[in-house]
């Protein structure tokens, strides 16, 4: 008994140590990547030919007003010093003030990020719910008409300029047919009715039990979410198909079939089980892409999300806002990558 206890303990320790080491290495590489990301963004912001002072004071300002703001922004200090100051603030959770709307950047991000999160989540849901079954069926019936259709659907998705499809969608479904809500997240009358808890209107209105707001928000989000969903569907269904094909040609599938297992059990019970980890990685990647803020979709649909926030800030030289937004987006991307890496390590037998 004591012996078994001892071996188990030893085993745990043995498996824990590399795990811990892995986490530490991962954390280290994440922080280095973040630092690099910040520095690159910072440098881009400084070499941009847009004068941040001018962006604040406007074209009519006198030279003395201009000089005062120049000093206030610390632009008279060397670049590296400015960067270190900025880093110090960020490490203390302070992204600075947005130069252009006089609010803390963190407040802005807290406002715009939920909008993107809501859209990206719904889009990914659509992509997964339709894309995975489509991919599986296409693989199982390789070469059939359904495989061909799945292929065309995916290729069309890869080929469509999203800003154009968005415009056309708005024109047809909002302008002509009136089936969906227009640009923006809500009609004017529905704004500011439900208290903002999560910043995601669908969830907020559901919590408040206000189904009118919910319906309105849904009518606004459904078109852009479907568009984004289509793109992730294209990607997810293609990847699912090729993962499945790999499994279906594996020996154990043949064995299972020979043993007389039903086709259904073979597909879902065995082949699909084995691609789950790979699939989650793919979904995470697609989710990360949508979370980065689909700039063009957000612009077409006047969606106040993080993509259009960073873009607007960039074009008006609001560098605090750009940096803050990039940090958040980069962090999400890196974390989702890390997450799928870990998943691989923990569940994939081959990587052990």
């Amino acid at each position: 008994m004591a012996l078994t206890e001892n071996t188990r303990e030893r085993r745990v320790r043995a498996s824990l140590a590399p795990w811990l080491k892995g986490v530490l290495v991962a954390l280290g590489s994440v922080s280095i990547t973040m630092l690099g990301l910040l520095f690159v963004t910072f440098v881009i912001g400084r070499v941009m030919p847009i004068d941040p002072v001018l962006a604040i004071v406007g074209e009519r300002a006198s030279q003395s007003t201009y000089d005062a703001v120049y000093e206030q922004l610390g632009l008279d200090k060397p670049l590296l010093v400015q960067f270190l100051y900025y880093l110090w603030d960020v490490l203390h959770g302070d992204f600075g003030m947005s130069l252009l709307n006089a609010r803390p950047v963190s407040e802005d991000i807290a406002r715009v990020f939920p909008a993107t999160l809501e859209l990206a989540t719904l889009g990914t849901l659509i992509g997964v719910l339709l894309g995975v079954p489509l991919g599986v069926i296409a693989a199982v019936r390789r070469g059939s008409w359904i495989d061909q259709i799945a292929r065309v659907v995916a290729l069309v998705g890869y080929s469509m300029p999203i800003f154009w499809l968005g415009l056309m969608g708005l024109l047809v479904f909002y302008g002509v047919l009136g089936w969906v809500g227009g640009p923006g997240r809500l009609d004017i009358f529905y704004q500011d009715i439900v208290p903002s808890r999560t910043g995601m209107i669908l969830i907020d209105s559901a919590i408040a039990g206000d189904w009118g707001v919910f319906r309105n928000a849904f009518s606004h989000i459904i078109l852009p979410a479907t568009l984004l969903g289509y793109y992730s569907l294209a990607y997810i269904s293609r990847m699912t198909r090729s993962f499945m094909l790999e499994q279906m040609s594996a020996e154990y599938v043949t064995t299972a079939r020979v043993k007389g297992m039903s086709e259904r059990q073979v597909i879902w019970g065995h082949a699909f089980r084995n691609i789950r980890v790979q699939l989650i990685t793919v979904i995470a990647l697609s989710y990360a892409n949508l979370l980065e803020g689909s700039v063009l979709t957000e612009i077409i649909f006047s969606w106040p999300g993080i993509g259009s926030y960073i873009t607007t800030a960039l074009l008006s030289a609001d560098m605090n806002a750009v940096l803050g937004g990039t940090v958040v987006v980069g962090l999400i991307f890196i974390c989702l990558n890390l997450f799928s890496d870990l998943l691989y390590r923990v569940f994939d037998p081959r990587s052990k």
Partner: protein
Amino acid sequence: MSETLTLRQWLLTDEPTSRRHARLASLYKGWLTLRGNTMAMFGLGILVALVLMALFAPLIAPHDPYVQNLGNRLQPLGSPGHPFGTDSLGRDILSRLIYGSRITLYIVTLVALIAPVAGLLVGTVAGYVGGWVDVILMRVTDIFLAFPRLVLALAFVAALGAGIENAVLAISLTAWPPYARMARAETLTIRASDYISAVRLQGASPVRIITRHIWPLCISSLIVRVTLDMAGIILAAAGLGFLGLGAQPPSPEWGAMISEGRRFILDHWWVATMPGLAIFTVSLAFNLLGDGLRDVLDPKEGSQ
């Protein structure tokens, strides 16, 4: 007839007489497989047509794409002399689309030359040399991967100023990291092979090993990847044009044409629709071809 048959036989031989013979033979077999793929051939056909259209634009286009006629603006589809109508300044949309194909091809070609080569260089060096070089290069790759792609391109263009050349650079800047990762992964497998050890034992320098032995082995997967990425490049270029950061007016860049036309979307929808269809057709063609190429060049279909 008999001569072509011999050529065919020569190409289809199972016993190649030289290395070149073997390579040509495998290329020909690949081509035969590709030719059997209707959709890929369809894509290839569109692309050939596009190249011809770009080459002979002055002969094909019914009008000068730059000539304005304020008295004849926003003509509808199918109006006499202007099958696709006219835009806000009275320019012929069809002619602008035809000339715009030159810009699209220009961008695609340049990006397809810059990004994979940069990625290949970084990836193979990192993979082959290893150690600190690998760590640093891959960290840099990660940083660029973590950037929101369009935002990075936007920032770059905003920093350098709008224009086609800068748009090309910006797109290349966002497109190289995946190639680098891919090339590194391939290099790692190739490096460990007996064949490379043998070459190394013969005293070949690392530069020679990388350029002569590793690069050629990475090429085929790279080509597939590039073809599949072409559509993404076209869409990114159009996106930049749409935001006013690509080609400058009066260039008939397709993305910029959509952006100009979106103002009239309710009453004159074709102004934005036609260039959108053009972008869609070309990127679809690249995707169809890429999909077919993957079947030919990459037996393990779809693996990344």
